[in-house]
């Protein structure tokens, strides 16, 4: 029983990281229709930037995020302006391939700047173990789960009530119609990239605080794909929830089925979901079948 509880707890922690990264994917896909293959690299780059800020100014967690998030948003905006905006009107395939190219470039640059060695980075979060219901947690783990909860709630409220969020949903539903009622579609695209980069930075810093800040952090982006698919590519909240599910599934596979299955269990879920319910658990059902 204890073993199961531990598996569930650590599953929820890594799942929260998947959920956060997946939210970033879904936000961009929802409003622009592009899968951003560079999301993992965005997570990595912003985490490294935050690490440099942390080691230069020795900030504690919240001030650190207060500085990191605006920088990340600026990076997101710059990427959208420089690489995605000029591709407007090209086929989706071309835009997605640009994000693939962007991914390898960002990854290479990040590794070349900060070097191939991993860093320990606690992001100014205390390290005393806290016990919750008999299961020991590190504060960083609780921060991660807390961040997912707060961002999910904030994301829901934003998309439901705020003017910008409603405009974003309108663009997702029908770009031309949104343009006709006076929504600036290009601005919505830019905002989607900015918010997505902000979420990526939160995910990156908290992931690094929980595990390690290493050059393979970008891989978490690909590992979060199962969550995006399971939740539905255009469902921001769904992706967050699905992230937790995938994290738990991975840990249960690891614990009960076999070592080494952890990494691929998520991808097996992708294949199954795409065969049974390609639009995911919460996504909108508009995939045409031929």
């Amino acid at each position, binding site marked *: 029983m204890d073993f199961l509880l531990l598996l569930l707890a650590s599953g929820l922690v890594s799942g929260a990281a998947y959920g956060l990264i997946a939210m970033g994917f879904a936000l961009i896909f929802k409003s622009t229709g592009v*899968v951003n293959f560079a999301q993992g690299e965005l997570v990595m780059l912003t985490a490294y930037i935050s690490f440099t800020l942390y080691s230069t100014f020795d900030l504690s967690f919240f001030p650190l995020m207060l500085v990191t998030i605006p920088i990340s948003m600026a990076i997101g905006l710059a990427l959208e302006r420089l*690489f995605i905006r*000029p*591709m407007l009107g*090209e086929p*989706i*395939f*071309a835009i*997605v*391939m*640009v994000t*693939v*190219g*962007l*991914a*390898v*470039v960002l*990854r*290479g*640059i990040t*590794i*070349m700047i900060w070097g*191939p060695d991993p860093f320990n980075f606690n992001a100014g979060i205390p390290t005393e173990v806290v016990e919750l219901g008999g299961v020991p947690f590190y504060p960083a783990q609780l921060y991660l789960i807390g961040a997912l909860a707060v961002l999910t709630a904030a994301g829901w409220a934003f998309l439901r009530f705020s003017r910008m969020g409603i405009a974003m949903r309108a663009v997702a539903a029908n770009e031309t119609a949104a343009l006709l009622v006076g929504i600036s579609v290009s601005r919505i695209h830019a905002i989607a990239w900015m918010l997505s980069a902000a979420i990526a930075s939160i995910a990156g810093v908290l992931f690094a605080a929980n595990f390690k800040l290493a050059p393979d952090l970008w891989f978490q982006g*690909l590992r979060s*794909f*199962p969550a995006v*698919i399971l939740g539905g*590519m255009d469902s921001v909240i769904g992706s967050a929830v699905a992230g937790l599910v995938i994290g738990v599934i991975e840990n249960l596979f690891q614990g009960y089925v076999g070592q*080494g*299955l952890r*990494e*691929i269990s998520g*991808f*097996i879920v*992708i*294949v199954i979901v*795409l*065969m049974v319910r*390609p639009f995911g658990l919460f996504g909108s059902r508009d*995939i*045409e*079948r*031929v």
Partner: protein
Amino acid sequence: MRTGHFKERTAQLVALSDSKVVWSFAGLLLALVLAAPFLIGNYQVTLLVSAMIAIVGAVGLNMLTGTTGLISLGQAGFLAVGAYTNAILMMDHGWPVWLSLPAAGVVSALVSLLVGVPSLRLKGLYLAITTLAFAFIINHVILYAEWLTHGPNGIFVSGAKVMGVDLQRGKALYYLTFGITVLVVFAALNIQRSRVGRAWMAIRDHDIAARVMGVDLLRYKLYAFMVSSFIVGIAGALISLQIRFVNIDVFALILSIEALAIIILGGLGSIAGAILGAIFLSLLPEAIRLFFDAFADTNSSFYTTYVYEIRGITYGIVIIAFLRLKPEGLIGLWRDVRKYWSNWPLAY
């Protein structure tokens, strides 16, 4: 501008090219490539072999992504299947290389059904993600099925002899690769203008319209997967012969991206483009090395530590630059030059 250019017989319509100039240039090129091992050094021969293997792989991927419009991010997986099949059959089961090489293609084609069947309902981005997932699953299967693949240790590949000639050495490997490349390119050129090739293009351009015209989507998509993976599997087997060692690190994700970079750079859907792209991209690392040679020490720790990143960044920049500035790729550039040449001094 060519004038008085009529086609009066069916044979003229289906000919690969009706221009004597094209044929004589192709013949000249063929003769040059055949004579090359006697004209250049061993190192350059190795480079040419890598370039030809890249051509085989790129032509295979081009069938799937360029002609049929099914995006695959899982090429590294198919290459790994081909390379491992060849290595396992040759080293553990003692098959002769002339049997294990086609077997690598067949196994790769069969494995492609595993990803092909679930992908039939998907297209575009969803398919890209499924193939990506497939590549990861293959990698892990190879890593953990130690009884079959020797896991992380990898397999040394040696002793590929046919009639006493070691096919893994210099000129023999060169001519083997050359023969396969020519075969694959001609096969691809012929498939593209057959019923199957036209069906693939119809699916790429509009799948619903293709279905309405009577193209069996299920069958032709699976054909595309199988033919493409057969060719890619053979490319994988050739890689295993060339580098004499298969290991999971050889088939990292960057290889899938490199493959896509090749066909985007060359021009999607064009076989000549795939060839140009493959040559360009396999000589690119060499160009980068020469560039560093000219300006800095190639043995410097910066270059040796980050050689992998530098390559990645170059691929990324090539992909982005071509998609942004010249979506038709190198072959589009070539067409522009040709048009400009034949129309000069008029603009068009």
